[in-house]
């Protein structure tokens, strides 16, 4: 294991950091305040090839690796967690399952537009009664006259209102339980498909989180992803990869809040000296730094394992669990270091604290990550 970044990875970091500093950060507060999906930033990210980083150039991907993608999500999230999750959900949850499980025809049809960012992707697994218990799918799919007919709904779908392509899961045989779940590629124009209500959230408020509604939605037979009954396995493998993306988002939020806290502690004077001179705060900052670096090691390690094509599911769960809890801890301390100002929108740390919370919840709650980790220990 070697965390010496390659020259390409170093340049990815420098480039995305500059992009995030110049373009993303100045909008972060406004995007949050207005619940605004930053369409123009997504267009720019497409232009600079940030929407298909770990996929081959034959599909118009960047030809990069998982670690470069992870560094990109981290650097974007350092400035704006909304922007980070748009890239993470699109890349990990939509492009990746099509790339991993799609037929050559499906890959040729969907990957170039998705990797080049001409189209945006999303993933539909969660339902009102199937959250952590994803196996409890109530959306059903029936094969009628050579077409799959989907009925049901999905909730909390990231990128929902702006995505063109959705990887969606539905029950094709209830009697088989998780082995009766099948994955489909659904386009937003398909008959019977619509977007339901948009959620108003505590954090990542610029991210579009919506319901998906399927009313006799017609999906061509060739849009079945993988094979019938393999949907749950596809979902779980997809989420393994997605967790590294969310872990990187958490890491970025934590780094952003840490940087703000250090800067503020050096500028803010009380009792005639910067508050950074107080040992109480110094110890707080040391604890923040340790958690930040520990999170980074876990996240990069999981990404490296994926790049080396080694098993990474447990490491991704550990990375996501730790980075999310570190982000919550660090952002909360960053607000504390800012005192009263930290509680206001004059400084970005209150937004970062609100943004951090979701990383403990989506793509598997912290409790689910503990279940995954314990399961791997006790198997």
């Amino acid at each position, binding site marked *: 294991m070697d965390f010496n970044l390659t020259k*390409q990875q170093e*340049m990815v970091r420098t*480039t995305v950091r500059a992009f995030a500093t110049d373009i993303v950060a100045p909008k972060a507060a406004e995007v949050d305040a207005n619940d605004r999906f930053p369409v123009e930033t997504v267009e720019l990210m497409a232009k600079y090839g940030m929407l298909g980083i770990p996929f081959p150039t034959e599909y118009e991907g960047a*030809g990069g690796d998982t670690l470069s993608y992870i560094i990109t999500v981290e650097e974007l999230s350092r400035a704006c967690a909304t922007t980070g999750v748009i890239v993470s959900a699109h890349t990990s949850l939509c492009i990746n399952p099509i790339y991993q499980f799609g037929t050559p025809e499906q890959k040729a049809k969907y990957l170039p537009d998705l990797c080049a960012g001409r189209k945006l992707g999303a993933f539909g697994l969660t339902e009102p009664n199937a959250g952590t218990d994803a196996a409890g799918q109530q959306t059903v799919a029936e094969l009628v006259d050579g077409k799959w007919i989907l009925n049901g709904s999905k909730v909390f779908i990231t990128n929902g209102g702006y995505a063109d392509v959705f990887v969606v899961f539905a029950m094709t045989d209830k009697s088989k339980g998780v082995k009766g779940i099948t994955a489909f590629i659904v386009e937003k124009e398909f008959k019977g498909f619509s977007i339901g209500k948009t959620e108003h959230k505590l954090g990542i408020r610029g991210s579009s989180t919506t319901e998906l509604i399927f009313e006799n939605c017609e999906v061509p037979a060739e849009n079945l992803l993988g094979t019938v009954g393999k949907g749950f396995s596809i979902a779980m493998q997809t989420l393994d990869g997605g967790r590294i993306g969310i872990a990187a988002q958490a890491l970025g939020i934590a780094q952003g809040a840490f940087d703000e806290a250090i800067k503020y502690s050096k500028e803010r004077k009380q009792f005639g000296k910067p508050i950074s001179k107080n040992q109480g705060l110094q110890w707080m900052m040391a604890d923040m730094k340790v958690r930040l670096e520990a999170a980074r090691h876990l996240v990069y390690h999981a990404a490296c394992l994926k790049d080396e094509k080694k098993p990474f599911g447990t490491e991704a769960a550990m990375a996501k669990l730790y980075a999310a809890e570190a982000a919550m801890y660090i952002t909360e301390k960053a607000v504390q270091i800012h005192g009263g100002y930290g509680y206001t929108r004059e400084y970005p740390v209150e937004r970062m604290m609100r943004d951090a919370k979701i990383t403990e919840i989506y793509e598997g709650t912290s409790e689910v990550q503990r279940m995954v980790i314990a399961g791997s220990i006790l198997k």
Partner: protein
Amino acid sequence: MNIIVCVKQVPDTAEVRIDPVKKTLIRDGVPSIINPDDKNALEAALKIKDADKDVKITVVCMGPPPAEVALREALAMGADEAYLVSGREYGGSDTWATSNIISEAIKYIGNYDIVFCGRQAIDGDTAQVGPQIAERLDLPQITYVQDIKMDGDKITVQRALEDGYQVISVKTPCLLTCIKELNEPRYASIPGIYTAYQKEVKVLSQNELNIPADRIGLTSSPTNVHDTFTAETKGAGVVLTGSEKEVSVALVENLKAKHVI
């Protein structure tokens, strides 16, 4: 059309400090970047290429081997070829010697229609190398370019002045030095970064250029740096007190006295 863009790798002066004893730049931990004006020069070339895919952009950088990173970044932004002009013999060159070396490198590469340079580098701030290269190559030159219009082999540019600009037309081949008002440089693209590292950065050393020793390096340089220091911060300034009207009148008088207004 073939375009050559000269770039320099410089320390990011926003973060650089000067060692008060040794009088040298403290470069430890200071990131190196492409000189900002040179990025504007590269962007100008890339814009011409955006409009005409047959344009070929070659970037040239003189510096030690680590300066290769600047060339890789230029390739990642969209340049086609890169040359690193590098050799121990070139170390310590002043602007006169540097322009001797870079102009020989450009002659070696050959076949150019436009040579783009940045106005000046943020580490040396001389603004001499671009014009000197034009002289060595016997090219017409326009400095401080803030706008470019292409029309075949005719280029019409705005040359910035302190309180306005000149409109000047020139035929290729020519050399233009660019300022930040010219454009907003693009970022490297992520796919471009991976492609950039698959390309070859050709190294031009004395083996290839074979420039007479009395035209290169520290000992042949006619100018030398005698001292480097951080300017002392100015005093606290003058605080005007009184009613709004009194302060306003006093402010105007002060500014008039200093010929500001």
